């Protein structure tokens, strides 16, 4: 479904990605793990068109998208739920959700607001509340719900557990597993390696802009080097 091939990205003179290649098959949940600054978020931003690669290709369902604008990429069915949630704090929960579905017709959006209400009852109670007044966990729920409003086939999920209380982390990962069960393809970036490897089918390990390990999540969990670096055993 998604293929990254030899992707290079620069921030000015700083090389952020140096030849990243990865694949995500339809229906898979693939995790990218690694420490801060390894290039995980940069990879997602490049897929969604916020950053331009200096070299390499990104194919989505066979079509090259590395030069496409973000709004075209959203239209193709890729939705990016960014790190730090980035909800519109001064807009209401409902307005945030409407914005998530901005490319679709008002009638479809209205129907999907119902669906989101069922998936996230907490949000339904807070539809008219400003996004900025929600708790961290609720904001993350809203960020995920908003990303789903465009009806994506591929969800890019960046650090959904960041800064959340353990009980909220459990809930967020339950939602992620739910979405996977419903057949959504997910590319997950996560520092919480335990959880990421629990829900993922496969995973890639990134270090300073390169992929250093890859394989089935279950195998990576027992890889001595991954254990030492990320799982703290």
């Amino acid at each position, binding site marked *: 479904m998604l293929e990254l091939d030899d992707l290079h990205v620069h921030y000015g003179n700083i090389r952020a990605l140096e030849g990243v290649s990865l694949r995500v098959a339809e229906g898979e949940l693939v995790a990218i793990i690694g420490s801060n600054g390894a290039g995980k978020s940069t990879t997602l931003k490049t897929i*969604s*068109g*916020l950053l331009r690669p200096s070299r390499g290709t990104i194919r989505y369902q066979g079509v090259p998208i590395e030069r496409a*604008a*973000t*709004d075209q990429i*959203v*239209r193709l069915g890729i*939705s*990016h739920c*960014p790190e*730090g949630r*980035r*909800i*519109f*704090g*001064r*807009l209401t929960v409902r*307005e945030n959700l*409407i*914005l*998530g579905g*901005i*490319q679709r017709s*008002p009638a479809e959006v209205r129907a999907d607001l119902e669906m989101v209400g069922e998936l996230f009852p907490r949000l339904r109670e807070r539809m008219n509340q400003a996004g*900025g007044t929600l708790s961290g966990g609720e904001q993350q729920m809203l960020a995920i719900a*908003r*990303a789903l409003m*465009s009806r994506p086939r591929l969800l890019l999920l960046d650090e959904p557990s960041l800064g959340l209380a353990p009980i909220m982390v459990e809930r967020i990962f339950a939602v992620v597993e739910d979405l996977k069960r419903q057949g959504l393809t997910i590319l997950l970036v996560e520092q919480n390696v335990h959880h990421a490897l629990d829900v993922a089918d496969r995973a890639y390990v990134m270090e300073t802009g390169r992929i250093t390990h890859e394989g089935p999540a279950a195998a990576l969990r027992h890889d001595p080097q991954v254990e030492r670096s990320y799982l703290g055993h």
Partner: protein
Amino acid sequence: MGEYFLQQVANALSAGSLYALMAVGLAMIFGILRLINFAHGDLMMIGAYLAAFSLFAGLPLPAAIVTTLAGTIVVGLLMERIAYRPIRGGPDVAMLLTSFAVGQILQNGTLLVSRLGGQPVQIAFPAPELLNGVVAIGTLTVPKVNVVSFFTGVVLLVLLTLFVTRTRLGLSMHAAAEDLPAAQLMGIKVNRVVATAFAIASGLAAVAGFLYATQAGQINPYLGFTPVLKAFIAAVIGGFGSISGAAIGAYALGFLEVIPTALAGIADILPPGSVSPGVHDLLAQLLPSGLASYRDAFVFVFLILMLLFRPNGILGGRAREEAP
């Protein structure tokens, strides 16, 4: 009592509307691009010239208004496309300096065109008949154009508010102003949102230019300078980047500006007998000449105090939270 004061209130409302038409455009563009578009005053000047030339050409008023609006909007859109889009996302100071350059180009371009057309630098504005004369409200007489300015400003501000709060494009604009990359991730076409903001701001500047020229009676290529500064101050007073804040700031500025003049009439509204006739005469003599000429100084002192004690403006509240 009162008549002198009511006159000042009428002046404040009319000036406030003109400032508001400029300030909301400035705030809208700043909100999305973090660009203080100092060429915004020159869009107003372009509007005034387009109106003048349309009326010189003998167009009826509605046609002149349409030409003025359409022409200014085209100039505003070209400005965005040619000057600002290529450096979008660059350092704020690069955008600011570009706006000064754009302003120079528009001023000298206008000067060139009007000189080639055999016109002097200063042109008498052919104010439409409809806007000449005065309106009597009770004992008060107000120039018709001031009344029209006030109501035009209010109506356009209401329409703008409805657009921003009730339409999807308005919602997209709000999202883009709050967090541009996040708005992009929603699939919002940022170019379209930015162009819409420029089109609306240019249209409002054109209306302001038309009304300003009618009030002033004459136009020159540099007429946009003071209004854009005033609009900037209004936007700062209101809380930069917020449309409603800019509108409130604009009317506040309108009232601030008349305070030094209005004080001259204070002797008239003091209860009779509360001051001795000598003091009364002294006030009446001293205050008008003494204070009215300090109008701009008064406004700037207020602005400085505002920046010291309430740097986020009237509507700004606490420091705005920044996206991580």
